[in-house]
C-alpha cells in the first residue's frame, strides 16, 4: 500500500530531490511576492515582476523562475488538510505568518454574510501562528505518561530541535510584529489594488525580506515554518501517539480515519487499538508519496506504476519488477483501488482471430480477420463485439445503462459479472479470473444480442462467435481448443453427409445440434418478411430438448415449405439427419453451444455442389 509505494518513491526522491516540486501545480488564483521592508506604495510599481496569475485549464505563465519561486513557497505554506488549519475559523488557508492564502471574496470582503473583516481574519491568523499556540501543538504530540517526566524533552534531542529553537527566537517574534504592522498600514491600499485585478479563487501573498544572519535566511525560514506547522499535524490524531523504543509513533493521516461515529475503526480487543502506528519520518514520506501521486498521476483512472520504473524512468536494463495498480480519487487523494500485481507494467496480449465457422465475405471468399496485437485493440474489439461498445476506459467502475432493444438487463448483469475478469486480462495480463467464466458469459451475450437487440446482424454475430472461440483457445488452451476442433470436425462430417447419396444419420449429439442450427438458419432465411430479426430464432433456442427442437423445426418447415424445392437433396438429407436421431443430451451446455454454432456458421445448405462430384 502506501508503505509499498513509498519504497519506490523514496528511491526516486534520493535521485531527484525536487521530484515533488517538478510535478507541483498551483491552484487558481493570484500569487504576489511582497517586500516586508517596503510599504505597498513604493513596491506597487514593480508588481509585474512580482506576481503570477494562475487560470485553470490554461497554460502556466512563462516566467519559469518566478513560477518556481511561487511553487516552492506555495508548497511550503499550504495546509495538510482543510481540517487542519492554523486559523481556527478556517478563513485563512496558509500555514505560517509569512504567507497569507485567502479566498478572493473573503480577502476583498465581498462575501455575502461574511462574519469577519479581512483585518480580523489576518490578526487572528497571525496570533494563531505565534509562538505559544505552535509550542502548545508540539507539546500535545508527546504522550502523557506519569512515570516518565523526561518525555517533555523528547524533541530537544531530535532533528527538530533547531526548528524549535527558531520558534522561540526573538527574530521570529520581531518578524511577526513587522508583518502585523505592514498589514496595519498597507492592507487597505493592497486590497484596493488587488480588487482591480482579474483572477479567480485565491489571493496568495508571500513576504520576503533580506536577513543579515545567514541562519535566518528567508528561504530557510519558510522551510522551518513548514516543519513547525506540519509535524504536529502529520498524524491523523495525536490521541494515539506512543513512544516506542525512543521513537514517537502515531496514527498515520493518509487514507486513515478514526471516526467516533464508526466505532469499529478502532481495534476493540487488540493490543494496538489503532490499526497502525508509524514514525514521523514514515508519516512524512507517506504524505510526500501521496502528494507526488496526486500531482503526477491522473485521478479516477487505474495507473500502472512499476515497482521502480514507475518512479524513476528506466534507462537501459530494468531489473525484474511487478506493478502497482493505483486508482485515486481526485478530491481527497484517497486510494479507491490498489493492487500489487506481480507482472511487468506492459502486458503482452495476443489473440489470433480464426475463422472457425468458415464464414464467407460478401464476395464469397473465406473471411480472414488477422491477429489482435495488443490489449487496447483487444478491449475495443471485445467491447464492440460483445458489449455493444459499453466497455470504455474506466469500465471497471462504470455501470452501463439498460436500454430495451439495445442493451438488455441481462447484458448489464453479464457486464458486471465479468468486468473484473476482463480488466485483469487487459491490464494485468492474467487470465486466471477469466478462464472460468468467459465461455459462459460470451455465449449468453451472443444469444441476448441475437434475440433482443434490434440492430444486431447475423454476419457480425458470426464474427463475434469466431472471436469467442479464438479467445477461448488463447486463454485456456485445453477447453477452447476442444470446442473449436469439435465444430470443425462436425462441419466436415456433415458436409460429406449432405452430399452423400445414401441415407445418412447423425453420428452423435454434436452433429444433431449443429445440423439443427443450420436448418433453423436455412428455414428462417426463407422468410419473405421485410426484416428478418433474431427474434425468429427464439423458438429454437427455447426448445428444452431434442424432441422439442425437432417440433420447432417441423413447424418452421410448415411455414416456409412453399419456398423449398421438394427435390432439394441437401435439404432433405439435412432434415432426415435431424429427424432420424434421438439425442442423449438436452439443449444446454455444449449442445446449446453447437446449436448456436450451427446457426451462425457458414450454412452448408447454401453450399454449391462442385460439379463432377455428384
Amino acid at each position, binding site marked *: 500500500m502506501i508503505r509499498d509505494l513509498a519504497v519506490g518513491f523514496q528511491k526516486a526522491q534520493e535521485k531527484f530531490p525536487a521530484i515533488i516540486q517538478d510535478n507541483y501545480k498551483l491552484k487558481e488564483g493570484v500569487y504576489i511576492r511582497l517586500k516586508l521592508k517596503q510599504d505597498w506604495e513604493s513596491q506597487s510599481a514593480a508588481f509585474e515582476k512580482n506576481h503570477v496569475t494562475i487560470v485553470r485549464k490554461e497554460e502556466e505563465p512563462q516566467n519559469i523562475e518566478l513560477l518556481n519561486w511561487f511553487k516552492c513557497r506555495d508548497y511550503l505554506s499550504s495546509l495538510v488538510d482543510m481540517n487542519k488549519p492554523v486559523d481556527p475559523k478556517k478563513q485563512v488557508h496558509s500555514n505560517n505568518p509569512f504567507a497569507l492564502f485567502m479566498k478572493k471574496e473573503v480577502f476583498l470582503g465581498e462575501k455575502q454574510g461574511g462574519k469577519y473583516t479581512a483585518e480580523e481574519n489576518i490578526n487572528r491568523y497571525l496570533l494563531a501562528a505565534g509562538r505559544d499556540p505552535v509550542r502548545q501543538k508540539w507539546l500535545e504530540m508527546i504522550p502523557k505518561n506519569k512515570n516518565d517526566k523526561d518525555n517533555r524533552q523528547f524533541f530537544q534531542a531530535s532533528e527538530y530541535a533547531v526548528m524549535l529553537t527558531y520558534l522561540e527566537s526573538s527574530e521570529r517574534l520581531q518578524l511577526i510584529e513587522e508583518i502585523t504592522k505592514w498589514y496595519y498600514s498597507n492592507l487597505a491600499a493592497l486590497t484596493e489594488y488587488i480588487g482591480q485585478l482579474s483572477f479567480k479563487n485565491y489571493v496568495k501573498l508571500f513576504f520576503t525580506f533580506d536577513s543579515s544572519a545567514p541562519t535566518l535566511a528567508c528561504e530557510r525560514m519558510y522551510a522551518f515554518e513548514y516543519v513547525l506547522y506540519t509535524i504536529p499535524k502529520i498524524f491523523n490524531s495525536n490521541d494515539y501517539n506512543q513512544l516506542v523504543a525512543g521513537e514517537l509513533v502515531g496514527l498515520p493521516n493518509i487514507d486513515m480515519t478514526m471516526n467516533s461515529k464508526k466505532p469499529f475503526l478502532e481495534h476493540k480487543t487488540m493490543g494496538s487499538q489503532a490499526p497502525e*502506528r508509524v514514525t514521523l519520518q514514515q508519516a512524512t514520506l507517506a504524505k510526500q508519496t501521496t502528494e507526488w501521486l496526486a500531482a503526477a498521476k491522473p485521478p479516477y483512472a487505474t495507473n500502472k506504476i512499476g515497482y521502480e520504473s514507475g518512479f524513476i524512468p528506466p534507462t537501459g536494463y530494468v531489473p525484474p519488477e511487478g506493478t502497482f495498480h493505483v486508482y485515486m480519487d481526485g478530491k481527497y487523494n484517497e486510494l479507491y483501488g490498489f493492487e500489487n500485481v506481480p507482472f511487468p507494467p506492459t502486458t503482452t496480449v495476443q489473440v489470433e482471430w480464426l475463422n472457425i465457422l468458415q464464414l464467407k465475405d460478401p464476395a464469397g471468399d473465406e473471411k480472414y480477420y488477422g491477429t489482435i496485437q495488443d490489449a487496447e485493440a483487444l478491449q475495443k474489439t471485445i467491447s464492440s463485439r460483445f458489449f455493444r461498445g459499453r466497455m470504455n476506459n474506466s469500465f471497471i467502475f462504470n455501470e452501463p445503462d439498460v436500454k430495451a432493444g439495445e442493451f438488455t438487463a441481462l447484458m448489464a448483469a453479464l457486464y458486471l459479472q465479468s468486468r473484473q475478469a476482463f480488466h485483469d486480462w487487459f491490464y494485468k495480463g492474467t487470465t486466471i479470473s477469466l478462464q472460468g467464466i468467459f465461455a459462459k458469459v460470451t455465449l449468453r451475450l451472443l444469444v441476448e444480442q441475437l434475440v433482443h437487440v434490434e440492430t444486431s446482424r447475423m454476419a457480425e454475430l458470426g464474427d463475434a462467435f469466431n472471436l469467442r472461440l479464438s479467445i477461448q483457445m488463447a486463454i485456456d488452451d485445453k477447453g477452447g481448443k476442444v470446442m473449436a476442433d469439435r465444430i470443425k470436425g462436425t462441419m466436415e462430417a456433415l458436409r460429406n453427409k449432405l452430399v452423400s447419396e445414401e441415407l445418412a444419420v447423425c453420428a452423435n449429439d454434436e452433429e444433431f445440434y449443429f445440423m439443427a442450427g443450420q436448418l433453423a438458419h436455412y428455414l428462417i432465411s426463407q422468410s419473405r418478411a421485410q426484416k428478418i430479426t433474431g427474434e425468429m430464432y427464439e423458438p429454437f433456442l427455447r426448445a428444452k430438448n431434442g424432441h422439442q427442437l425437432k417440433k420447432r423445426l417441423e413447424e418452421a418447415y410448415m411455414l416456409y415449405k412453399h419456398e423449398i424445392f421438394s427435390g432439394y437433396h441437401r435439404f432433405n438429407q439435412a432434415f432426415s439427419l435431424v429427424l432420424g436421431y434421438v439425442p442423449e443430451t438436452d439443449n444446454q451446455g455444449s449442445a446449446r453451444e453447437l446449436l448456436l454454432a450451427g446457426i451462425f456458421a457458414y450454412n452448408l445448405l447454401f453450399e454449391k455442389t462442385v460439379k463432377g462430384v455428384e
Partner: protein
Amino acid sequence: MRALRFELKGETAFFKKPDVNSYAYFTYSHIHKIALFGLLGAILGHGGYMQQYDANYPLTTNRKQAKEVQVFPEFYEVFQQARISIVPHGDRGYFAKKLQIFNNTVGYASQEEGKVLNVREQWLEKPHWTIYVADDAGLAAGIFKKLAESLLQSQSVYMPYLGKNDHPAAITEPALVELSQAGQVKFIDSLHRSDALAYKVRGEIKPGQGKSFFKELMPVALNAENNGYVFHSLVVTNHEIDQASISEDDYRNLYCDGERVLYFI
C-alpha cells in the same frame, strides 16, 4: 529436516492491510506469517487477541488493566519462533482480487445517519498455498507433534479461516515430509527474503511462463509495545537467482522438497 506439509485453500480470503481504512480495506496478496500462526493456533485451541484482552482487562464492572499484562496473544507466544514456508499457487503466484461491497446493519456498527456501515473489502479469489511448518527448535517440545496429529487426523479446536471468519479454510493433504538441504538452486518456489539475494540480469524465467516478480512489505512479527505488525519485504518470482548472491543466512533457510525449493521465513 522434518516438516509438516499441507495444502491451504479457500474460495476467498481477506488478510487486512492495517494502513488504509478510509474508502476500502485492502488485502495482502498472500497469507502472512502472523495470520498463519493464528490459523495454526486456532487448530490447537490457543487463545487469540480476544483472550489476551480478557486477561489484560479482566471482566469486572469496569474493565481495569490487570497487574500482570499478557504482552502477546497466546498463539503468538507459542509460534513466534516457528519457521514456516509459504508456496503460492495460482497464476505464477497471483490470485485474482475483487472489491466486495456489503453493509453492516446491526445498528451499533455505525452512529451515522441510518446506522448502516458500508464496508468495502478487497478479497482474494480461490487462493491456494502449500504450507510447510519446520520441526525444529522454533517450536516448543510437543507442539509440533500435537499440530501434526491434529492435521493428520483432521481435527481442530476452533474453525481455521483465512483472515476473517467469512472465509473458511480448507486444509488438505497433510503429510510429514523429510526435507533436504538445498545445494545449487535456480528458482525459489516460496515467499522469501531477498535482502541480499539478487536475480540474474539475463537469467532464465521458469519454462513456459511469463515474467513474474512479486514483492510486498508483509508482517513477519508483532511488536511488544502495542502488538503492531513488524514488516519485512518478501519476494516470490520465477526469475533465475544469481547463485553468487545467496548468503550463508539464506542457505540456512533453503530446503528442498523433491523438485520444489523452499525458503523458511
